[in-house]
């Protein structure tokens, strides 16, 4: 009989877990929708800035702006690793960290900038050179937050003479697919020009000032976009992970119920046999 009770408690606890994972799935789905909207809303701004930068670059403005210039003599590099703050999102963080470790193998001296607690915890434990870290940013996603991050990174880039800063993050493909990408953040590579307007603009105050200001803004937007993508990807990953967890819990409950019924049946059978043999004994 003890066995029966044990199975019953087990079933209850799995049911509770299933309820939790199911709720988490729903929450992730709602957050995912919001994050997707954010990405769509950020697009016109980013596109327009990219277009302006392209037109300016195409004019061959003779700027030696440090944000745009490839400096081959500077070897110092840094990686920005964007992970999530919370766990329970499948292989989301593992993939990022794996990719970052491979990148670090080629470039052992590189500095790290961590956005998201999971990455920070990992690299701190493995005593990598983490120069900056930002945690708990994804709860309140706001453009001003990402601007602060971007400003810090820009200052770091300019003050510390980095040759290159790369970002490693999860790109949002669809709700069930995330891609780990490494992208060069600084110096800025304007996306390939398709149809640049040949309009001859008048620039005020002058091209140089505009291009340097525009460079800063471009990095702000890039960081914003990357954070949005990563948070959407995180929610997507969590949704899929929680979905399969819920499914697994359902399977487990099914097999436990089967066990329970079998145990109950055999308990009843034993009881009947006992009664029957007892009755037989009286009859004789």
């Amino acid at each position, binding site marked *: 009989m003890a066995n029966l009770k044990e199975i019953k408690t087990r079933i209850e606890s799995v049911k509770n877990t299933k309820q939790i994972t199911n709720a988490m799935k729903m929450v992730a789905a709602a957050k995912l929708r919001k994050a997707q909207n954010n990405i769509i809303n950020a697009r016109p701004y980013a596109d327009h800035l990219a277009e302006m930068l392209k037109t300016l670059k195409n004019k061959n403005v003779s700027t030696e702006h440090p944000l745009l210039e490839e400096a081959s003599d500077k070897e110092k590099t840094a990686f920005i690793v964007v992970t999530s703050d919370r766990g329970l999102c499948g292989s989301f963080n593992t993939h990022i960290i794996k990719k970052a470790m491979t990148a670090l193998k080629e470039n052992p001296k590189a500095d790290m900038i961590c956005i998201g607690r999971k990455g920070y915890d990992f690299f701190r434990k493995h005593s990598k050179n983490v120069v900056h870290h930002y945690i708990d940013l994804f709860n309140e996603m706001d*453009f001003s937050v990402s601007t602060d991050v971007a400003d810090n990174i820009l200052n770091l880039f300019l003050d510390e003479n980095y040759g290159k800063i790369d970002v490693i993050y999860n790109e949002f493909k669809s709700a069930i697919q995330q891609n780990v990408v490494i992208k060069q953040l600084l110096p800025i590579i304007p996306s390939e020009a398709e149809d640049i307007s040949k309009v001859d603009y008048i620039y*005020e105050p002058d091209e140089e000032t505009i291009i340097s*200001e525009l460079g800063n803004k471009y990095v702000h937007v890039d960081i914003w976009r990357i954070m949005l993508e990563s948070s959407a990807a995180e929610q997507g990953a969590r949704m899929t992970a929680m979905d399969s967890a819920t499914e697994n819990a359902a399977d487990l409950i099914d097999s436990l119920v089967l066990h329970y019924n079998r145990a109950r049946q055999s308990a009843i059978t034993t009881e009947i046999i006992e009664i029957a043999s007892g009755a037989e004994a009286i009859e004789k």
Partner: protein
Amino acid sequence: MSKIHVTIIQPTKIKVDQEYEHIIIPGVDGDFGVSPEHTPFITKIRSGVLQLFTGSKTEKYAIHDGFVTVENNTVKIVCDTIEKENEINAKRAKSSKERAEKRLKSSESDINFRRAELSLKRALIRLSLGSS
């Protein structure tokens, strides 16, 4: 009469997407007006008041830091923060003005000083629009 199509783009949304007859933009080198058939033009925006005119109506916005592209009767403004006259929270602007002034007096580092200066500027523009 031809009109100018004005698009104001913020990082999180498109604020304005409409036609106007005339607009006045606070550029870094001074306010300038844009009427139809304006020459192609790119400039930076300083904190100030953006005015959009249609007929007898005027819309005023407090705008802070951005870029404007004028081309072919379309004006594209990209900026981080912009508020319409009636969206301005005068109380908040006032308190942030006081905060910025206090910080300007007691600031240690350059960065904080610049930040305080900028936020003071913003607050002043908001107040000038919000109270009118």
